[in-house]
């Protein structure tokens, strides 16, 4: 099927004006909800994502309890109005898969051994979707976990790269994702550089894939700085004061 739209022109400019190496505009806020133990709100381009963390708390369902450590149960959900064609409420197979791989990525950094038999519940809600929602969701979830005071080694940073009109691009938007040739969502642990989430679909040569990884890892590092900044901003105002209020109990 032929596509009428040109996604990347011959000067390498994308339809939203970006170069192949630029990510969309990113905004991150920590601690946006009252009830949750930790929360975060993230915007990447037109994606709007909310994440909340409850825990550590008693593990439900009980048969999933692990006697040696906490489990991280992540539920990714797209709200009905988040996409052009209304999405029927309820879970679907795609959400289950995404929930699984996001939980796995987060479990890599959370010090789960400190809370045997407990569960750390992470909820990701996509309010508005425009490609790369799982990366935005994981980015928000990491901030929410830190905001909840969960002991963790590092904050997981996530961004996707891909290919459209033969160009390898960072942070695909919706059109590039729908009409392009490949999508590579990924996430890293910035302190070690190791990959904790990786998927690919489409058609890429080895060179193209290597370039996608290079761009994606760079994008992850950039988003990491914004994640840290969001957390520090939330708490720094409070802490500009006396040391050791009182240790007397």
């Amino acid at each position, binding site marked *: 099927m032929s596509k009428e739209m040109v996604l990347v022109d011959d000067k390498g400019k994308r339809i939203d004006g970006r170069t192949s190496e630029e990510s969309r505009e990113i905004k991150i806020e920590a601690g946006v909800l009252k009830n949750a133990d930790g929360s975060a709100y993230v915007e990447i381009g037109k994606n709007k994502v909310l994440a909340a963390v409850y825990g550590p708390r008693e593990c439900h369902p009980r048969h999933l309890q692990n006697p040696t450590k906490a489990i991280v149960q992540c539920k990714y959900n797209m709200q009905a109005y988040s996409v052009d064609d209304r999405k029927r409420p309820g879970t679907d197979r795609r959400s289950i898969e995404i929930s699984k791989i996001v939980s796995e990525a987060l479990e890599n950094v959370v010090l789960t051994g400190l809370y045997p038999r407990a569960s750390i519940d992470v909820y990701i809600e996509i309010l508005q979707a425009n490609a790369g929602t799982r990366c935005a969701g994981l980015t928000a979830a990491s901030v929410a976990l830190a905001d909840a005071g969960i002991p963790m080694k*590092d904050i997981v940073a996530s961004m996707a790269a891909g290919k459209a009109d033969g160009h390898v691009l960072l942070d695909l938007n919706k059109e590039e994702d729908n009409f392009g040739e490949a999508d590579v969502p990924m996430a890293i642990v910035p*302190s070690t550089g190791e990959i904790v989430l990786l998927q690919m679909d489409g058609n890429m040569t080895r060179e193209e894939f290597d370039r996608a990884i290079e761009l994606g890892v760079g994008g992850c590092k950039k988003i990491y700085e914004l994640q*840290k900044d969001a957390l520090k901003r939330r*708490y720094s105002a409070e802490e500009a004061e006396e040391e050791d209020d009182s240790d007397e109990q």
Partner: protein
Amino acid sequence: MSDISKRSPREVVVPGDVLDDGNMRAGENTYLLNGEIRAGILGVKRVRQNTVSVIPLGGRYMPETKDTVIGVIEDVGSSIWMVDIGAPYPAPLHVSEVPWKVAFGDTSKYLSVGDVVMLKILMVDESNKISMTMKDAGLRKLEGGRIVKISHTKVSRVIGKSGSMIQMIKNITDCRIFIGQNGTIWIDGEGVNADAAVEAIKMIDEETVKANLTERVKEFLENTIPQVEDDKEEGDE
């Protein structure tokens, strides 16, 4: 009285932040990666002697031995009550740890779901199993008054330096106030005074700017509560 010393802002650190390149010792809530000491939790960096550690800024209450806590009965068994103290784990209170002689199956006659109790943590073992007791001075079922739940990390702020903050609130409101380490606080009082105490405590929990907090709380209380004439009683708690 709060002193507004002009000290440098405490440094907020996030998980993964490098705290030191290895000359110091790794303290609480830190870990080593390739010779660097990194933060393992969101908190404030603290350096004491030669050790760098992180004081957590949030997180759920994790009980420690000897903590006094205030909780709510959430389930009743034949020889045990389950108490919600806001910890990640269910906290059981066994019949052997209450001041009454409870026959098997009679548990609900003494404490039922919804009752508020003040307890002490006896022990927390390695797998985080908690045991608690009511058999100590002052521990009992609480009745009347008001309950306020705050973040357990704000408990020291509510107490204040040398008890200054809590003392001030007790004096002005003329209420007795009991603070659980888990962030649940019981105010023994009624009416406008108790309500004001609740508001004052919530203020302390929610305020993000700490400057002059004690003064501002005091001002709020004085404006809310009609002041008793000159001889104010010294509420002695």
